[in-house]
């Protein structure tokens, strides 16, 4: 998106408006709530009181980032119809939620969990498991945050035709984000997500409309073009692609559902009713989000044939230029759309940052450094720690890595290793701390090594999935050999909570 020439000053105006709206929302969500900064659950979980609209949009805006458009359209362009997998792997996440969210919600309310680590600590009572999972989750979150920071700069610089340079764009929007998050915590994050989510949804629809207009409104024409020129992008995929598709379903489904910020949205729900209603709506979002982006990528094959990998990464910008040239309406819609992409990236980044801060304050500081500190102090440590982390990541962001999609897979590989402990622990009482620790560690090492040695996939299966399989095996066989079960390590009342007995 480096050569986006359609918006200079106009882009700056729209971006400024968006930034101001976010700050205003942040200000009002923190105003008058004196409890907010003195309680961990007040600041990090919006007082466990998110209603349907805020919860739905914060789930939506967190799950779908600006990368969903900027990164997925080019992938669709390059891989063709097999990128339909992006709809299915975003949908399966809801299925994985159904595996654990119903019970985790109840347990979290009864035991007042703030972070995912609280659950693991409650269940396993093991410093080793707690520390390792904190490390893996912070690593994953840090990587994810870094990716968002890189993307913000690219989007803004592209949108303003370089009028706002990359570095300044990142710094300005990070400051806006830090400011509203400081003022309102999760409440501010969720309420800004409503605005950011709506802009993103509208943007995708208009973008698709414009793209269809450019190809004469006929999608069949596009597929005919592809059939004549690049039939490989249209045919039934090779077996290895299908295996990879299965692997993506496992990796994204399991990984995205136990993202710390995703788990904290389960904790934040006002009620079971709100939570399940939000998930029920979320199940419909992939077709109208990644699905439409997929169509955009496919249309791109006809509009800009023959782009190489680097060239195709610019696809969304190239198309936006053409769409903006249609007429005045599309011109302004494209500017708003690009503002929407920036907003969407920030809406993901703010959730990740908040989760990161909460783990610094509740887990690292609150469990290991100074357990006796007041909640106010813990919140403060998290806020400041988050800011330090951001600036550390910014230094890395000045040197952005290759294509976006590769980093996306990287963060899942390690994070997903927490899954067996997290979900199996809910239902299987024999699951013991030691095997969980070794499973997690070996799984993470295998996944990390495979990726680092350039074997991101083996026969189409992701390193993270291979690590996870080993992790599961170690957990299960190890727990069957060890005699310590939850019946012994958990107190009677704790066991009752786990079994949903009131």
């Amino acid at each position, binding site marked *: 998106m480096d050569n986006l020439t359609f918006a200079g000053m106009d882009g700056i105006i729209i971006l400024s408006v968006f930034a101001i709206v976010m700050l205003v929302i942040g200000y009002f969500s923190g105003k008058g709530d004196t409890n907010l900064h003195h309680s961990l659950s007040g600041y990090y979980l919006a007082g466990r009181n998110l209603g349907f609209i805020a919860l739905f949009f914060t789930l939506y805006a967190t799950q779908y980032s600006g990368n969903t458009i900027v990164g997925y359209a080019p992938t669709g362009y390059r891989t063709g*119809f*097999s990128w*339909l*997998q992006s*709809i*299915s792997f975003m*949908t*399966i996440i*809801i*299925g994985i939620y*159904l*595996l*654990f969210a*119903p*019970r985790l*919600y*109840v347990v979290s*309310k009864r035991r007042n969990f703030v972070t995912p680590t609280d659950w693991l600590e409650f269940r396993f009572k093991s410093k080793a498991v707690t520390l390792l999972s904190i490390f893996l989750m912070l690593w994953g979150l840090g990587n994810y945050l870094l990716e968002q920071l890189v993307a913000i700069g690219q989007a803004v610089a592209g949108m303003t035709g370089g009028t706002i340079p990359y570095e300044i764009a990142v710094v300005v929007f990070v400051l806006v984000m830090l400011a509203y998050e400081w003022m309102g915590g999760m409440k501010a994050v969720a309420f800004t997500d409503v605005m950011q989510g709506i802009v993103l949804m509208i943007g995708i629809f208009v973008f698709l409309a414009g793209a269809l207009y450019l190809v004469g409104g*006929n*999608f*069949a*024409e*596009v*597929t005919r073009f592809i*059939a004549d020129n690049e*039939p490989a992008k*249209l*045919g*039934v*995929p*090779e*077996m290895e692609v*299908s*295996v990879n*598709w*299965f692997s993506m*379903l496992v990796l994204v489904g399991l990984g995205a559902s136990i993202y710390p910020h995703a788990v904290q949205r389960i904790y934040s729900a006002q*009620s*079971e*009713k709100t939570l*399940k*209603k939000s*998930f*029920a*709506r979320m*199940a*419909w979002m*992939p*077709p109208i989000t990644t*699905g439409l982006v997929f169509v955009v990528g496919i249309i791109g094959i006809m509009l800009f044939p023959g782009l190489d990998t680097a060239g195709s990464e610019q696809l969304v910008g190239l198309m936006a230029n053409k769409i903006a040239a249609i007429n005045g309406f599309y011109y302004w819609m494209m500017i708003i759309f690009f503002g929407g992409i920036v907003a969407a990236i920030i809406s993901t980044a703010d959730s990740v940052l908040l989760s990161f801060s909460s783990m610094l304050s509740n887990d690292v500081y609150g469990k290991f450094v100074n357990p006796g500190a007041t909640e106010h102090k813990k919140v403060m440590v998290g806020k400041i720690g988050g800011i330090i982390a951001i600036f550390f990541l910014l230094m890395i962001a000045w040197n952005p890595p290759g294509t976006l999609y590769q980093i996306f897979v990287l963060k899942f590989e390690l994070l997903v290793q927490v899954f067996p402990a997290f979900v199996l622990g809910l*239902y299987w009482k024999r699951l013991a701390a030691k095997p969980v620790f070794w499973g997690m560690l070996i799984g993470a090492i295998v996944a990390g090594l495979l990726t680092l040695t350039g074997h991101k996939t083996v026969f189409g299966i992701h390193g993270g999935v291979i690590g996870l399989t080993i992790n599961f095996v170690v957990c299960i066989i190890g727990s069957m050999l060890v005699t310590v079960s939850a019946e012994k390590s958990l107190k009677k009342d704790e066991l009752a909570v786990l079994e*949903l*007995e*009131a």
Partner: protein
Amino acid sequence: MKTKSVKEPIRKKWIWIVLFINVVLIVPWYFPKGAVEPFVFGFPLWAFISTFFTLIMGAYLSWLCISQWNIVEEEEENAKRKEDVKHG
């Protein structure tokens, strides 16, 4: 708590069997390699069928959330109603 009205998806095997079958039908492993024709609404047949089952999965999961998940809802809604009466 262990009354009949409690519904938890994990306890129902059929939910996961159906979901598994659905996933297996989404991934196009069962089509002959490279086949393109015929086209349905501009989609090659395999892509059309895959998309169809993806949409089915979305509908199925959405329905499951609403109808097969009920653990503390009544308890919470009753508590909320009492609260509302107190303040209202």
